Each structure stands twice: as structure tokens, then as C-alpha cells.
């Protein structure tokens, strides 16, 4: 508005596009993050797909006992946690870019991005809580559904 011009601004703000702001390097960091997280996600997700869909009986062998067996190891806890966070940030940032590209009305963009960030928070918080509060041997469950180490 009518404040002193930002010394970093390359030229005085034009009248028309009020949302063409250049505040800091956020978009640059986002761009770098997409590439760095993408490279890491290739390893994490290919490993995940191999463990869950290829090795053993593949999808057929996935059940509560399978998940409990995996999360008994801190390696897979950290693996899944990292995968959850990186994939959600990577995916949400990608969706944000797409919304910015195709939703030309300000209100549409606001609503879509509001929903997007809401979904981000719900999924990341829920997923993180599940990984950290998971109980592999719930006492009221039938033993044959639980991993073998619960029998003791």
C-alpha cells in the first residue's frame, strides 16, 4: 500500500496484479524441497512397495499382524513416519501449485487451499499419532489376529 518501498523489491509495485508479491525466497525453498524430498521418497516408497506388495505373499499377507510385526522395529516406525511427512508435504505443495495454476478466482483458490491444508493437518497428525501410540497387543482382541510375540 502506501508504505516505504521494500528495498529488495526489484521495481515499484504495479497497480494491476496485487498478488504478485515477492516476499522472501519461500517459493525457491519449495522448489528445492520438491526435488530433495522427491529423491528421498523414491527410496522410501520403493522400499515400502517392495516390502508390502512384492516380497512374501504380497498384498495377500497384509493384515493387523503384518503391520504390528513391522512396527515392532524402530526402523519401520522411522521409515513410515518419514514417508508420511515427506509425502504429505511434497503432495500438498504439488496440489497447491496445481490449485494456483488452474483456479483463477481468488475465492475458489482460497476455498480449495483451505480444504487442502485442513486435509494435510488431519492426515499428518492422525498418521503420526497412530505410529507413536500403536498397541500391537490390544488385550481385548482375539489372539489369532495378533502378531506371534503377543502370546506371552
Amino acid at each position, binding site marked *: 500500500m502506501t508504505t516505504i518501498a521494500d528495498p529488495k523489491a526489484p521495481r515499484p509495485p504495479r497497480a494491476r*496484479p496485487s498478488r504478485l508479491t515477492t516476499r522472501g525466497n519461500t517459493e525457491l525453498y519449495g522448489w528445492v524441497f520438491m*526435488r530433495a524430498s*522427491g*529423491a528421498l*521418497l*523414491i527410496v522410501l*516408497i*520403493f522400499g515400502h*512397495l517392495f516390502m508390502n*506388495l*512384492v516380497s512374501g*505373499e*504380497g*498384498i*495377500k499377507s*497384509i*493384515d*493387523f*499382524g503384518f*503391520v*504390528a510385526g513391522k512396527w515392532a522395529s524402530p526402523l519401520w516406525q522411522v521409515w513410515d513416519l518419514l514417508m*508420511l511427512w515427506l*509425502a*504429505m508435504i511434497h*503432495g*500438498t505443495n*504439488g*496440489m497447491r501449485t*496445481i490449485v494456483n*495454476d488452474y483456479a*483463477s478466482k481468488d475465492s475458489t483458490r482460497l476455498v480449495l487451499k483451505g480444504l487442502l491444508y485442513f*486435509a494435510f493437518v488431519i*492426515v499428518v497428525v*492422525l*498418521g503420526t*499419532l*497412530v505410529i507413536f*501410540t*500403536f*498397541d500391537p497387543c*490390544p488385550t481385548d*482382541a*482375539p489372539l489369532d*489376529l*495378533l502378531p506371534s510375540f503377543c502370546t506371552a
Partner: protein
Amino acid sequence: MSAAPTAPASPPARKKAPVGTLYRGREGMWSWVAHRVTGVAIFFFLLVHVLDTSLVRVSPEAYNEVIGTYKNPVMGLGEAGLVAAIVFHAFNGIRLILVDFWAKGPKYQRVMLWVVIGLFVVTMAGFLPRHLMHVFGGE
């Protein structure tokens, strides 16, 4: 036919709804479109996948029942499609990184897309038979 001296098309920078087409077409555009489409598909699956996995916190029965639906043939084909989307997105993502950071990347972007497609075919040829055997295989 080849040797068009054009750089890969970048997303349109105009404000209003695009009239006609601003795209250059060809490999640069189509890989960009496919990267977006697969990315969106993977994102929505990820939302659902975290929710279904969260059922381990409800009860073993609830989780097993829902994960059981992932084992029927229709979902099995869906998983094949999902893996295909992930594999393309992953390999094309590497191509994208090379285009951005490797000095000769932009020059070879078109060749690299064909490498991506080749690697995609090889990976899927390794994955599909095994997965389809798990899904449709005798029991």
C-alpha cells in the same frame, strides 16, 4: 521432424483462462501433464491410505476387514494402476531433477523421457506378473 530448437514448454504464465492452447505439445508437455495427473492420483490415494492404516488403532478386526477389500481383484487392478503412477512419477521426477541440475539436462530431456518410459516398462514387467499372481493366484 525432430531437431526443433524449442525448449520444453513451461506452464502458461497468463492470468485468465487459456484460450486456444499455450502449450507447445510433444514430449515436454505430455510428460509435464502426466507428472501432474499421476501426482494428483497418488496424493488422493495417500489420504485414503493413511485413513485405512489408522484403523489399526481401532481394532485388529476393523483393520483386517478394510484391508481385506484391498485384496479383491478390482482393487488389485487399482493397486497395479497406483504402482504404475508412482513408478512413472518417480522416474520422471529423476528426469526433472536432471533437467534442472545437470548442465546437459535440457539438451537431453527428450531422450531422457524415452529412458524413463523404458525403465517404466521394465519395472512394471517385473512387478505386474508377481502382483497379479498374488491378486488372482489360486488359494
